[in-house]
């Protein structure tokens, strides 16, 4: 407050430059790249064209991959919410050393690389791995299941990757609900289920909404998990995009794919925000 305006902007300058030069400019650059003609010796040509977009939108194959990416991310987000909500609730009630321990359990996957965690699932889901062994020991299956390189394993691993991103905002929202409110309604004869449905769930919505959006956006564009656990048979948009950029060096076409993916994601997020706007307003009231 006492610092001069000039000093404030001088202090902000390096960070603003970092984000402008190495993020805003490059992403703008990518938009431009998607309209370039393909190059012969270089990764892109000199002229501009719409051909990459017409090619993507006119080809059922790309629609299929886009749908697979968008729907897989939807399933991941939903499962993530189901898994995260009880954890967030439990965490919001914990105090003292227990709370610290639980935070560490949730933060340690967040702090371990995605690649490392996915590799862990490779071992767990192997043909003679612990998951198959325990399912057989429990008599649920007779022969080991082939889990590696299936869509189910990709979904499982992605849910695991994004749980912390969902738990933390919901936990914050739950902590903001005054305990007196739930106690009051319980003392007035509401059952546990009613308290949850009518008070806790609606009031935690301001945490659910950002969690859902963040997880969806990140899940749509996740590359490592489908690349490592998805196998060669199925493509997702991110693996396709990186393939175009590093394998075949079709930079303009790869950019167009990335833009189609981003625009679809933004549309879905906008739609979701519109649909859930009322729920959020109700929580604020």
């Amino acid at each position, binding site marked *: 407050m006492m610092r001069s305006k000039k000093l404030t902007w001088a202090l902000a300058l390096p960070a603003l430059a970092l984000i402008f030069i190495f*993020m805003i400019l490059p992403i703008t650059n990518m938009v431009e790249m998607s309209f370039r003609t393909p190059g012969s010796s270089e990764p892109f040509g000199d002229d501009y064209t719409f051909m990459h977009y017409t090619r993507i939108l006119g080809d059922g194959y790309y629609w299929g991959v886009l749908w697979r990416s968008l729907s897989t991310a939807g399933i991941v987000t939903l499962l993530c919410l189901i898994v995260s909500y009880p954890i967030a609730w439990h965490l919001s009630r914990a105090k003292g050393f227990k709370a*610290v321990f639980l935070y560490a359990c949730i933060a340690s996957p967040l702090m371990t*690389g995605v690649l490392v965690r996915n590799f862990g699932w490779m*071992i767990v889901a192997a043909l003679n791995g612990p998951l198959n062994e325990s399912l057989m020991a429990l008599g649920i299956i007779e022969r080991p299941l082939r889990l590696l390189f299936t869509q189910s394993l990709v979904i499982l691993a992605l849910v695991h990757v994004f749980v912390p991103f969902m738990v933390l905002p919901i936990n914050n929202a739950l902590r903001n609900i005054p305990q007196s409110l739930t106690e009051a309604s319980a003392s007035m004869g509401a059952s546990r289920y009613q308290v949850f449905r009518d008070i806790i769930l609606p009031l935690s919505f301001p945490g659910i909404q950002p969690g859902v959006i963040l997880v969806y956006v990140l899940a749509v564009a996740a590359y490592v998990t489908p690349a490592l656990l998805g196998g060669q048979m199925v493509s997702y948009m991110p693996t396709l995009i990186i393939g175009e950029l590093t394998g075949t060096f079709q930079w303009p076409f790869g950019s167009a794919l990335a833009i189609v993916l981003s625009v679809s994601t933004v549309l879905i997020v906008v739609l979701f925000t519109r649909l859930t706007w009322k729920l959020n307003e109700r929580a604020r009231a």
Partner: protein
Amino acid sequence: MSMAAKTFGGQRHVNLGFAVLIIALYVFLLVPVVTIVGASLTNGLMIEFPPQGLSLRWYQEFFARQDLVDGLLMSLRIGAITAVVTSAIAMMAALAGQALSGKLSGVFQLGMTLPLLVPELLTAVGLLFFLYKIELGKTVAGLQFGHILMSFPYAYVSISAALRQVPSSLEEASASLGATGWQTFRLVILPLVMPGLAMGAIFAFINSFDLYTISLLLKPLGGNTLPLALFDFLTYEFKPTAAAAATISIILSIAGVGLVQKLVGLQRAF
């Protein structure tokens, strides 16, 4: 409590069911990490869990593999530079952010966390073209810039949270006693935000150490970070050496989380 338990007949069952559910969910969270650490200690020739006998032979094997060790060294070097540069820039930006108010402050916060909110894939693709254009394509410097950008929000969020805890009256008192802005910063603010600053640096380091997609696209000629080397290793040879490599990065993360806990307490960290 006992009264309540009597009134709601099934409550005890509900509580028990919830406890089982919570335990199952935490097991789910920790399973991959535990499995890797276990598998890295095997004495057998294959990646498996539970391990066949215990030994450290695969760690020996890891340190004998030039490609993996080079990857580890490169990740450590890039992570260290990222931590130092990022926390310095983020400290300055946090001071600036604190001075802003109203709508501008909200926009500024959003801008500073942008690299975290936009998928890494898009940033990586954009940077690939941009670095090529400014002739930093496939260089260590280019990769370093990418890592600094991607780790910046973690440092910024930690440091500005710590800065918010410093009462502005302290700053005013220091100024009214005749201290210059720099003296106030160095003698009053810096010591108070030190834990937050350290936490920001640690988070930036861990994040840089784990980045994959951006490193894949900006990979310098002839250089690999540890995650890149590990991915290649997993594709061509599926041996417990990989579990040892992964365990080394898990240990680094746990050490980081432990350090943050020691410095500030985890609850305040998130």
